[in-house]
């Protein structure tokens, strides 16, 4: 059961369209697992619709409707589900992830980078430079290095589960770590855990003496 949800104000930013691309992907991913937040998002979209309805009208050009009639005669109606073709899962791991997430994966196999004996990472490029989107994979029984955050990190559990000092996280759980939260996640003994993560600044590994940051290849352009 999903027990960790995005905050109200995050869902408001999400539905009002001011949330950046990568965090928005993490919210939609959570919605794949959470009926409660899906209903809340429907209501918040309705709030957007009601605010649109109440907006002070600004007149449009007289010939705009004619232009639109010309436009609609050129194209054909959109089909109900244009998405099937985008699914590109080519390996077992990709295939185990929610279909919504699969559409963002690179074509071809995921390229996992080795971060520690039990932790691998594959970055996902979505053309946004303020955040980094990635998949984390903690092997069964494995521990991720203890780390601290310079920026905010959002994690959504996709498969398996992991724990840290604060609790156990199941598929769908949406966890936000603020800068300064030191934690050390570890996966359940019997199953590896895959998470989607969104990072707004590099992570520091606190368990290591040398200052280096292999946890994320964060490189704002």
């Amino acid at each position, binding site marked *: 059961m999903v027990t960790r949800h995005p905050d109200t104000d995050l869902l408001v930013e999400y539905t009002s369209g001011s949330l950046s691309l990568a965090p*928005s992907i993490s919210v*939609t991913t959570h919605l794949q697992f959470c009926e409660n937040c899906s209903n809340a998002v429907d209501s918040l979209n309705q709030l957007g619709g009601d605010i649109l309805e109440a*907006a002070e009208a600004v007149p449009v050009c007289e010939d705009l409707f004619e232009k639109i009639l010309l436009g609609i005669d050129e194209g054909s109606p959109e089909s109900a589900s244009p998405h099937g073709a985008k699914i590109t899962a080519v390996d077992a791991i990709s295939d185990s992830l929610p279909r919504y997430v699969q559409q963002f994966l690179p074509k071809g196999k995921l390229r996992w980078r080795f971060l520690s004996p039990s932790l691998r990472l594959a970055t996902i490029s979505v053309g946004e430079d303020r955040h980094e989107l990635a998949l984390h994979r903690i092997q069964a029984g494995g521990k991720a290095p203890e780390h601290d955050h310079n920026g905010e990190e959002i994690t959504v559990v996709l498969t398996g589960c992991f724990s840290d000092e604060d609790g156990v996280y199941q598929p769908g759980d949406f966890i936000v770590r603020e800068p300064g939260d030191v934690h050390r996640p570890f996966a359940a003994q019997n199953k590896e855990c895959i998470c989607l993560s969104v990072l707004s600044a590099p992570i520091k590994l606190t368990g290591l003496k040398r200052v280096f940051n292999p946890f994320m290849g964060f490189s704002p352009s």
Partner: protein
Amino acid sequence: MKNSQLNRLCETPMPEVQDWTACLKTIGDYQDKARFSLLFEHFSPRVKAFLIKGGHLNEEKAEELVQETMIKVWRRSSTFSPAQASASTWIYTIARNTRIDCFRKQSRENLESLSADDIYDSSYEDDSHYSSLVQIRRNDHIDQQLKELPQEQSEVLRMMYLQGMSGQQISDSLGLPLGTVKSRIRLAIAKLKIGFASTYKPD
């Protein structure tokens, strides 16, 4: 619109539309251009207000995006389901996504050709771990209660939903701490009785 065209569109007398959701459904079911013209007259000035208030759009660009939005409304109308959204909600999400894509193109993001429709897509929900209960997801009380909110709360909601501002941008613009902006949002949402995690009940 030219008179001749109006006459052609309105061969059958059109009652004043009260229910835009039913109107949109009819447009989708019958490709009814006459009703589409009424829907256009009602919504396009509001969509234009939404686009202009979102900032940085001149008259010409706003008109172009109104056109883009209303063409999408027409083309997707056959997928519109009154059980899932009202007409204003549905048109709002299309206008919002159109505006997001426009801004991302301007800021040279979106090189991977991901559109806002992809990001917000909920068409995968069928696969998810919860059963899809058939329910009407409309809360008629939201509209009424929106009018009764204290001005300082409705102002913040309008800045977010109409102008597309983030909490941080509102904080900067009003000269208020971010925490104050967030608490206004939370109070407003609580008053609108929009359900969140605390109301979650397992089956």
